[in-house]
């Protein structure tokens, strides 16, 4: 057993509350769960991305706030980028989006309990502190690991995957068309000055 999983086991023991979708399933209604996490009913934030997608607008907003904190300042972050590149991509494995939503809610719970606000209401620096104090920055990404390992796997790495498969990462990597993004044919012959 690694140090990370030992830390995580104790974390799990202190955070057994059901997830939002577990509440939805158990109580048979959206109002209780949505109200419990402040997403409201009938609001824009409570709006699901689609009938079959587990994420709501509030999840996209929270993930965008986290992206804003983990990406370098030179990278412009907006909600539509995060929504399209993370939430509306082909789901990589069954249940991935469910787990992503759960980890966003875990971060939100921690932010509310320790820092007194949703991540969207905190500064980028404080959002990084949220992740650090959850131990997310010091663990290995594990899809079935501790809370911190899962946040790292589903939330942080989804956001990093979105960044490094986007030309937005160009100033950071020097690659005009990064692997995972269509457009290499227009770039691979180009000389550094821009001519073929």
């Amino acid at each position, binding site marked *: 057993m690694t140090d990370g999983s030992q830390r995580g086991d104790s974390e799990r023991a202190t955070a057994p509350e059901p997830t939002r979708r577990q509440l939805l399933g158990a109580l048979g209604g959206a109002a209780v769960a949505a109200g419990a996490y402040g997403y409201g009913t009938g609001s824009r934030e409570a709006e699901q991305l689609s009938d079959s997608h587990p994420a709501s607008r509030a999840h996209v907003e929270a993930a965008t706030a986290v992206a804003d904190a983990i*990406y370098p300042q030179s990278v412009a972050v907006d909600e539509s980028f995060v929504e399209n590149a993370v939430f509306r991509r082909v789901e990589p494995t069954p249940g991935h989006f469910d787990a992503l939503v759960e980890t966003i809610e875990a971060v939100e719970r921690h932010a509310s309990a320790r820092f007194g606000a949703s991540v969207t209401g905190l500064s980028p620096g404080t959002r990084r502190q949220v992740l650090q104090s959850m131990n997310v920055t010091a663990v290995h990404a594990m899809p079935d690991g501790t809370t911190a390992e899962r946040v790292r796997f589903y939330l942080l790495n989804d956001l990093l995957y979105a960044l490094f498969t986007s030309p937005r990462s160009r100033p950071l990597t020097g690659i005009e068309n*990064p692997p995972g993004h269509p457009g290499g044919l227009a770039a*691979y012959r180009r000389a550094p000055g821009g001519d073929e």
Partner: protein
Amino acid sequence: MTDDIDRTPSDTEVCIVGSGPAGALTAYSLARRGHDVLVLEAGERLERADHHRRMEMWLRPNFDRDAFWREDERDAFTSTGDIYARLNETRLKAVGGTSVHWDANTPRLHPKDFEMQSRYGLGRDWPISYDDLRPYYARAEREMGVSGVDDNPYGPPRTAPYPQEGFPPSYSDSLFAEACDSLGISMATQPKAINSEPYDGRSKCLGYGVCNACPSGAKYTAEVHVRKAEEHGARIVDQAQVLRLENDADGETVESVLYATPDGTTHRQAADQFVLACGGIETPRLLLLSDSSQYPDGLANSSGAVGRYLMDHPSVTTNAVLEEPTQQNNVGWVSSRSDQFYDPGAAGPGSFHLTFDNTARSVSGGAQSRKPASTRLLGAVTSPTLSALADVATDPLNETSLGDSLELPTTDGPPYPVSIRGAGEMLPRAENRVTLDRSKTDNHGRPVPSIELSDGAHAQRTMDHCLEVQADIMAELGAEITSVSTLSDRPMSTHHMGTTRMGTDPEASVVDAQCRTHDLENLWVASSSVFPTSGANNPTLTIGALALKTAEHIDETLSSA
């Protein structure tokens, strides 16, 4: 897995085991001639969206790239030789076979590859010549949609134009071209089964840069000919794991194959003709598993050659840096190659080809990978290099930096990366072989394949020569060499050849010039396993050409019956 697909046997003339390029092209070629064809495939059928999923798995280090298809118990193997076999990183069991994640490079073999014994006293001659296979090469290029340019002065002879325009050289190719010119080394366009224009109902390449998991459909996979075979009435049954073949009482013919389906049922499929098309490892394994009183050492193995003469392609790479930008990682494929050293003209260092990378210093994986602190600590203790110790001392928790301190892998410089890869030939040697490991069994209790492979002196000499040429090019380019990968500790390549070799002598080979087994009149092999020698070029186009030729012979046999 539960689904409502009918996987029970059906009446058929031809039963093919495996749906990679060999099986799919054979199935298509026979089905369009009006024959009843059934294909049994051990793996699953993938959907279009699955290729997007595979791309993400390819780019994310915390996903297993082979998780999409691998079943640990079904696909277990043993590796006993100097070279680790790593089968489950390279082959792929799914409808379409390993072509689902191949690089799609499609050079032909050279005439000399068919005449190694006559020309150099090495290996074996093929019972067919380059000229015999030449029309089938041209057909295979059309079927797969090969893009290329007839600009290779050291390439094999050809008259038929490539079906598609080739991709022009990359920016970094232009840097290499100057150095190669100075050294008198000729560069040429790399032919590949990737669309440079819309072809056969498939998209042109969009430049995702992740060819192994191409999500656009521009890269040819055998799923194309599975689909076409089905359009001509062939039946493809996925998740049908063939357990053994059964011969008749006289040992003259195969009567049936036994296969298992996910519901736990074992079925018996009869046919007039049987084709094994399950690659260089599973084809000999299946024959060895199908022993009988007539064939106590394995079906079609009266020669003792089944499983022997295993070959792959040894490769070496020289990595270097330049002070000027090199524009790497915009596409995933190679655009230029050199065949200058393919035909050495006399016995000595053997054949190799060079490819000039467009993906030097790969950035796949981004900033996601993070090892647990305990793993890093253990690594530093067991391998106490200065950098490992300093790394652990300055960052004991292996903390990830976020925000402006986020570290993304980069090809930015100076210096900027370049690399050259070379792949060469391996001679057939009886001790390199696939056998059965009876101490370890798969999901049906059958012995797993055991792979024993080592390079031998010829491959070592050949690749030493290749490294010298790579160093000369880097020196002429003014690049500083940063690392070299040699044959030492190399894993097995993706190409598995030779284990049911073709020949005229039934005592020294498994199949004849038509790829029909010497021992059983209705058993054929469509696979790189029939290659008597490996050549130095990627085998898939040759596999496709041989499959089209073999299908003609099967058609003639069925038509004359």
